[in-house]
């Protein structure tokens, strides 16, 4: 019996690790070959060489080609930008040429290897941007800033940007925290109780699709501060999709699961907590993902219109005195933060739903 089982299930005791993606920062090295095993020689990293050359090109181009005089002033931080590009190039050379015996470098190389084409493209994209703005002035200057202008913003306005980002994150965390909890509880309630569904479902159906940003002007009257308004609206935007998908998850649990649990002596509580909720979790995560999208846009609009801090506020503030480089800098920061939040959600999902891995592969 066990031999048959072993045959069917090779190496079952070690749970397969989910394939480590690019965003998976704590991933073990993709090729965790122990040192004492004579690993096949890894081929030379040609793409890395190409990337190092591209970054060197960017550095030289920025440094040697004089900037087009842009009205009032010379672009600051041109040299710093060139130095930064040269630094990246140097690091890439180091990685390409490092022998396998230098463990930390060899490890970093293994992890960066899949990103080779992106490293090349990034340098080339920056070069094109640099040429079109600072060097040739083909793009109108106040609206299109060269890369070094962004470097300048990050260098000189770091404190304000960091404070804005921190305030945005705090507001977001409180809002989505409340929204996710309320939405989840509501979803479970209407998925489980007929009476709750009768009363709550129509409300959700009518009010749910209203964009939370549309409620912003009204909400400012009802709440003591614009900050609490923002928390409420972010939570609302988050709660709606979470509630709907949790509900559909709970309602969609196969009846057989309940039958099995009931014959085994499960109470109502057990059926909710140990059957309905775990079975609904995959759907809940879809709801959380959708809710985050709504929460992000509510956050930014609320900060633009009422809350006196955060990245949304920074954007309107920068726009107020036509500081376009500051807007780009804030936008890039925002993109990184929000995508980081989503990556966190996916990491959490992969952890919680690790049992799901392989159900598709079967």
């Amino acid at each position, binding site marked *: 019996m066990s031999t048959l*089982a072993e045959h*069917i299930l090779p190496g079952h*005791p070690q749970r397969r690790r989910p394939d480590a993606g690019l965003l998976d920062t704590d991933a073990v090295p993709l090729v965790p070959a122990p040192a004492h095993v004579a690993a096949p020689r890894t081929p030379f990293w040609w793409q890395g060489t190409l990337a190092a050359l591209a970054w060197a090109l960017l550095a030289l181009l920025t440094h040697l080609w004089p900037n087009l005089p842009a009205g009032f002033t010379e672009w600051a931080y041109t040299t710093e930008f060139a130095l930064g590009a040269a630094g990246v190039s140097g690091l890439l050379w180091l990685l390409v040429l490092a022998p396998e015996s230098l463990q930390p470098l060899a490890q970093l190389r293994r992890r960066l290897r899949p990103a080779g084409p992106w490293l090349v493209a990034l340098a080339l994209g920056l070069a094109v941007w640099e040429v079109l703005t600072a060097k040739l002035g083909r793009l109108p200057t106040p609206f299109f800033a060269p890369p070094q202008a962004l470097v300048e913003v990050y260098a000189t306005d770091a404190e304000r940007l960091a404070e804005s980002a921190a305030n945005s994150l705090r507001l977001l965390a409180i809002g989505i925290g409340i929204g996710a909890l309320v939405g989840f509880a509501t979803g479970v309630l209407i998925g489980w109780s007929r009476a709750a569904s009768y009363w709550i479902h129509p409300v959700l159906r009518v009010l749910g699709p209203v964009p939370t940003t549309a409620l912003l002007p009204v909400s400012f009257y009802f709440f003591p501060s614009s900050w609490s308004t923002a928390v409420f609206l972010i939570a609302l935007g988050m709660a709606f999709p979470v509630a709907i998908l949790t509900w559909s998850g709970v309602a969609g649990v196969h009846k*057989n*699961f309940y039958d*099995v649990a*009931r*014959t085994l002596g499960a109470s109502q509580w057990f059926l909710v907590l*140990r059957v309905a909720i775990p079975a609904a979790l995959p759907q809940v995560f879809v709801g959380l993902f959708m809710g985050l999208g709504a929460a992000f846009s509510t956050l930014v609009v609320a900060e633009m219109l009422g809350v006196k801090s955060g990245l949304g506020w920074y954007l309107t503030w920068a726009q107020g005195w036509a500081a376009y480089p500051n807007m780009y800098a804030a936008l890039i920061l925002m993109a990184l933060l929000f995508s980081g939040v989503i990556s966190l959600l996916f990491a959490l999902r992969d952890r919680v739903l690790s*049992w799901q891995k392989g159900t598709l592969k079967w």
Partner: protein
Amino acid sequence: MVNTATATRVPQATPQRFPPAANAGAGARIEVQGVSHWFAQRGQGGAGASEAARLQVIEALDLEIAPGEFVALLGPSGCGKSSLLRLVAGLEPASAGQLLQDGKPITDPDPSRIVVFQDPTLFPWRSVWDNVALGLQARGLLKTQGHRVDEALALVGLEAFARALPHELSGGMAQRVALARALVNDPRLLVLDEPLGKLDSLTRLTMQTELVALWQRQGFSALLVTHDVEEALFMAQRVVVFSERPARIREVLVNDLPYPRHRGDPRLAELRRQALALLGLGDSW
């Protein structure tokens, strides 16, 4: 649904029953008395659905399972066998008549009567061990009696797979886990709803023998629904042959062959001929 006040825990015959010893006192006596059952058909003319709109699946059925007996129900598909199982398990109340376990009416599901379904229905987010532990956990016994989970897994030969996830198991292994999940509760009646229906024929034959061995060792009463004639005759002591829907008893075949049985036994062949004739396949045989 499980009302703690009415879900009577029948006192266990002995505190610890896993040692392999025949234990006839452990089986439940099940009585089905004059049971008729209808399905409410949906979408049939609104609230005032008449009798005609309901589908009768069982008609005036009387059946008794003695303690420790192995009874199989055989019948054309869709004849109401599985409905009867749901009534016996207490998952649904009967439309008319009553069902008794040791003289007490069956009103709710109870861990003394466990159903093994055609689909293993393992909870995919739980490991094999946690799946088997389900019944003990639901009744708050896991802390004190967790060792029974290991014993049940050993009983079906899957100790080595305690940490595996359901999607990593083959069909036969998954059904064994479902069996362990039932046996860990020391059921007094094991209800088997075509438990081997989806397995390949080789695994099926092995599992039939294993199931009979388990039944002999544990001493529970067993009620098996199948539409495999050989399976019913090979495993059960009595085979109840049902008519087309609504289910009525057409004949009861008694198989008094001792266990372990031999599949090539001429008596089995004779019973098989009878059963097939009762199911309307007499000519083709």
